[in-house]
C-alpha cells in the first residue's frame, strides 16, 4: 500500500478512537503494514500500559537507558540487537512526551520506515493529547458536579421563562418531599424578590436568587438553604431571653401591690386614724391583694401551661352570663382608661369550664383596654357573640394600637409581648394570650387574630357547644 493511503486510513481510524487502548491498537495495526512486529509495549511514565500480544513484555534492560534520551529527542529510534531491533517511538505533542511505544522486530528499519513512523507518532500525539484532555475535562466536570451535588444547599438554575434547567441533588430531594417549595420560590421570584424565607411543613428555607449569565444566556441561580435548625436555636434563645425578662417583669409586678399593702398597713398600725380612714386604707389594701392574687393565678396558670397539666371541667352555662361577668371584672379598668365596652350577645348554652372561659374574655378585654390607643378620642371594645349551629363565635374587636403584621403569629407564644422590653408601657406578665389559646384549644376550639397597626385588633374565637 502507498504511504499516502496508509496515512489516510490511519487518520480515519484515529478519528474514531475513544480511549488510549484503541489508539494504541490502531497504531500497532498501521505500523504492522510497514514493519513486522514481534512484541509491542506502550510505556507511560515508565509503566507498561498496553501489550501486544497480551502479557508479553520486552526486556526492560534492552532499552531502558535510551528512554530518557528518546523522550528528550522526540524522534523514533531503533536499537540493533544480535538478531533484530528494538524500536522506541515517542508519542509527543509540542515538546511533551505523552507515551513511548516499544517494539521488537526482526526487520531492519529503512530510512523511509523511520520517516513514516515519525509521521505516525506525530499524528498520534495530537489524538492522544486530545484524548487525555477530554478525559481531564470529563474528570474535572465530574469533580465539580460532585461538589455541587454534595453541597448542603439546594442549587437550581432557571431559564428566562422560569423553567427548571438544572437542579442539584439536595434541591431535588427537597422538592420531591415538598413540591410546594418550588411554587413558593417561583412566586417570590415573580415578585422580584432576591432574598426570602419560606416555611413549609414546619421546615424553614432561606432562599437567595441571583441573575447570572451562563454560556451567554440570562439565567436565575437559586440557592435554597434549610435553616430549620438555625431557626429552632434562634427560637430557644428568644424564649430564654423572654423568660429572663419575665422574671424581672413579674418581680416588679409582685412588688408594686406588695409595697402598697405594706405601706398602708404600716400607716394603720403606727398612726392614730379614724374608722373611716382605716376603712379607706383597707379598701386599697384589699384591691392590691386582689391584684396580687390575680398575678399569682397567672403564675399558677403559667406553670400548668409549661407542664401542660391545665384541666378543665365542663358544665352547661349560658354564654351571655359569662360575658357579663367578665365585663364586670374589667369595668373599673375600662372606665379608668376611657374605653367603652360595646356588647351584642346572641345567647346560647355552651358546655364549658365557666371560670376558664370567663378568663378568656377577661384576658382579651384586658388586652384590648391595656393596648387602647390614647390618641383616639373614641376608644372602644366591641364584643359580638353569635350562635352558629354547633359553635359559638366570639369576636372581640377594638380600635387600639394594633399589632405589627410580622408579630401577629407570635402573640400567642408564652411570655411574648410585642414591646418585648421592660418598658412597662403596659403592665402584664405576657402570659395572657398564651393562656387564652391554651384554654380555647382545651375546649376544642380555635382562635384567630387580625390586626392593622394603629387601626384595630380583632380576635375571633370559635368554641364548640359540646
Amino acid at each position, binding site marked *: 500500500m502507498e504511504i499516502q493511503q496508509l496515512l489516510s486510513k490511519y487518520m480515519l481510524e484515529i478519528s474514531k478512537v475513544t480511549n488510549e487502548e484503541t489508539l494504541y491498537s490502531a497504531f500497532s495495526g498501521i505500523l504492522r503494514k510497514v514493519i513486522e512486529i514481534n512484541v509491542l509495549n506502550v510505556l507511560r511514565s515508565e509503566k507498561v500500559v498496553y501489550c501486544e500480544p497480551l502479557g508479553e513484555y520486552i526486556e526492560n534492560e534492552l532499552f531502558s*537507558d*535510551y528512554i*530518557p*534520551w528518546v523522550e*528528550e529527542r*522526540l*524522534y*523514533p*529510534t*531503533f*536499537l*540493533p540487537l544480535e538478531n533484530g*531491533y528494538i524500536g522506541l517511538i515517542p508519542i509527543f*505533542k*509540542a*515538546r511533551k512526551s505523552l507515551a513511548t511505544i516499544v517494539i521488537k522486530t526482526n526487520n*531492519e*528499519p*529503512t*530510512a*523511509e520506515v*523511520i*520517516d513514516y513512523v*515519525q*509521521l505516525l507518532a*506525530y499524528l498520534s500525539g495530537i489524538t492522544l493529547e486530545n484524548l487525555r484532555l477530554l478525559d481531564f475535562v470529563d474528570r474535572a466536570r465530574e469533580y465539580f458536579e460532585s461538589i455541587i451535588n454534595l453541597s448542603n444547599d439546594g442549587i437550581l438554575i432557571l431559564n428566562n421563562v422560569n423553567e427548571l434547567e438544572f437542579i442539584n441533588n439536595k434541591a431535588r430531594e427537597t422538592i420531591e418531599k415538598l413540591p410546594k417549595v418550588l411554587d413558593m420560590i417561583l412566586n417570590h421570584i415573580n415578585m422580584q424578590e432576591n432574598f426570602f424565607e419560606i416555611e413549609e411543613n414546619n421546615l424553614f428555607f432561606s432562599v437567595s436568587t441571583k441573575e447570572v449569565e451562563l454560556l451567554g444566556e440570562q439565567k436565575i441561580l437559586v440557592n435554597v438553604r434549610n435553616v430549620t435548625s438555625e431557626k429552632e436555636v434562634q427560637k430557644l434563645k428568644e424564649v430564654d431571653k423572654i423568660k429572663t425578662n419575665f422574671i424581672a417583669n413579674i418581680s416588679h409586678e409582685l412588688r408594686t401591690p406588695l409595697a402598697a399593702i405594706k405601706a398602708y398597713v404600716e400607716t394603720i398600725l403606727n398612726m392614730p386614724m379614724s374608722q373611716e380612714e382605716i376603712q379607706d386604707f383597707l379598701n386599697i389594701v384589699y384591691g392590691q391583694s386582689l391584684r396580687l392574687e390575680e398575678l399569682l393565678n397567672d403564675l399558677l396558670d403559667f406553670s400548668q401551661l409549661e407542664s401542660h397539666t391545665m384541666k378543665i371541667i365542663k358544665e352547661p352555662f349560658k354564654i351571655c352570663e359569662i360575658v357579663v361577668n367578665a365585663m364586670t371584672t374589667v369595668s373599673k379598668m375600662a372606665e379608668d382608661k376611657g374605653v367603652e365596652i360595646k356588647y351584642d350577645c346572641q345567647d346560647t348554652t355552651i358546655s364549658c369550664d365557666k371560670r376558664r372561659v370567663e378568663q378568656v374574655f377577661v384576658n382579651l378585654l384586658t388586652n384590648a383596654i391595656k393596648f387602647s390607643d390614647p390618641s383616639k378620642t373614641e376608644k372602644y371594645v366591641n364584643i359580638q357573640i353569635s350562635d352558629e349551629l354547633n359553635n359559638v363565635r366570639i369576636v372581640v374587636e377594638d380600635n387600639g394600637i394594633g399589632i405589627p403584621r410580622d408579630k401577629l403569629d407570635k402573640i400567642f407564644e408564652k411570655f411574648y409581648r410585642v414591646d418585648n422590653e421592660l418598658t412597662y408601657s403596659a403592665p402584664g406578665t405576657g402570659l395572657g394570650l398564651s393562656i387564652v389559646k391554651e384554654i380555647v384549644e382545651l375546649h376544642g376550639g380555635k382562635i384567630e387574630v387580625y390586626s392593622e397597626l394603629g387601626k384595630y385588633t380583632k380576635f375571633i374565637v370559635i368554641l364548640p357547644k359540646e
Partner: protein
Amino acid sequence: MVRELISSITEIPTPDIVVQQIISTASNPNTSAKELEKVISMDIGLSTKILKLVNSAYYGLPRKITKLSEAVVIVGFKTVRNLALSVFTYSVLHSKTTFIDHDRLWSHFMATAIFSEQIAKDVGYMNREEVFLAGMMHDVGKLALDLILPAYIFELANVSKKMERPMFIIEYENSFENHMEIGEELLRHWKFPEEYVTVAGLHEKPSLNPNSPYIEMICIVHLANVFSNILLPETSLSYGEPYLDPLIFNVLGIKPSRLETMYKEMKQILSKSKDIVFGGVEDETRVQT
C-alpha cells in the same frame, strides 16, 4: 553575474560524487538511503568523522555508537546525512587561508543549525533535520564571497564593525550582490533542493517574501541566526544589534515574551554542544579535483 562567477571561478569547490549523492537525498530521502549508507561506510574517513560527531555530547547518546549502520537506525538517516554535509561544508570553509577566521565562522554555522533544530522542536515543526541543514547552510554566501573576493568580505566585516550595523544592511545599502543572493547561487550550483536555497536567500529578512512555501523554515533559521549572533557575537562577521523580523511571531505562533525562555534554552543547548560547534572536523577537502 554572480551565477557566472560561481560556476566559472575555480576557487568554488565542487562536491565529490559521494557528497553529490548525499545532497540529492536532501530532497528525496527515500530514493537510495540504504545504498548511500553503504557508500559512506566505504569512505572510512567520512564515516569515522560522522561517528565522532554522532557520539558528541550534543547528541548525548547513552551508549557509544561504533558502526555507521547503527548510527543510521539510532539517530536516523537524515541526521547522518546532515553530519556528512557538515563534514563537507567544514572542509570547503577551511579549503583556503584568507583574512577571516574560519573556525569562528564555522561556529556560527553550527550554532545556527543547532538552534534551528531546537526552535523547530519548541514550536512543533516536524521536519527538524531539514531545518538543521538549512540552518547550517544559511550563510554559505559568506563562504562563497570569502573564496571569490576575500578582501571584499573582510572589508565589509570591518565596515559593519565600525558602523555597528549588521552586515546585510550595509550590503543592501551598497546595492552590491549580497551574501544572501550569493548563498542562493552557491546552493543551486551544488544542487541543493529549493527550500535550502530559499532559506539562504531570505534568512536575514523573511518578510521580503512572506508567501514563500518555506516561510516556517525561513523564520526558524532567521530566529536561530539572531540567537546565534547574540550568543556568539561577531562570529558571523556581522556586527551591531541583530535584526529580528516581527513576522516570525505570527508564522511560528509565539509571543515576544517567549523569546526570553527560548534564549535561556539556546544558551543551555550551546553549552552542551561545544564539541561540535567549536571542535570542527579536520579533513582533506571532499572536493573533486
